[in-house]
């Protein structure tokens, strides 16, 4: 269990460091969502299932939708149907 925990913690740091270094904003948002998923798994390993459910629903689903809608509004999604 400790090994898995350490891998997840390393993944958190890698995702957090990589997210803002991506050139495209879409990639940034997707890496940030991966960060949230790892965090949700970590909550369940810290024996807080309430937090895991909330993080999976809110941090990954809802904030992902909000980020994507904002990207659409600021025309940062190249190659979609609108462009």
């Amino acid at each position, binding site marked *: 269990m400790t090994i898995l925990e350490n891998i997840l913690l390393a993944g958190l*740091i890698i995702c957090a460091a990589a997210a803002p270094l991506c050139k495209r904003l879409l990639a940034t948002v997707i890496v940030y969502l991966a960060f949230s998923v790892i965090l949700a798994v970590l909550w369940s390993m810290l024996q807080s299932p*309430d937090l895991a459910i909330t993080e999976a629903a809110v941090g990954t689903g809802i904030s992902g939708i909000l980020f994507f809608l904002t990207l659409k509004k600021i025309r940062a999604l190249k190659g979609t149907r609108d462009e």
Partner: protein
Amino acid sequence: MLEAIVQNRFAVVAVILFGIGLLNMMLQQNLMKKVIGFSIMDSAVFLLLASLGYIEGHGAPIIDEGSVNASLYINPIPSGLVLTGIVVSVSVTAFSLALIQRIYQRYGTIELHELLERAKKEED
């Protein structure tokens, strides 16, 4: 010292994440990336708080009928605080994203340099 770092690995990771988020917030020129740095800082604080309530070998705080023994479960207080915090952090993110949309409508860019230039040009 190395032992302390390994033992408090959650706190160390929280500090590193906080630093990454703060650096991004201060140094990035793109407003979206600033918001993401802010969210990373939020998550770092939550990670530190939730790790403070964890107790090795104890279970989730859902109490079995009949066996009310406090030494079987983890501390529920940090979980409750973080639970409210996660939802509030999402609403703060949504509010900043709405501000970004308005800024884009007004100035046509979300890069801070260009934004400052255009705002200054309009002011003159």
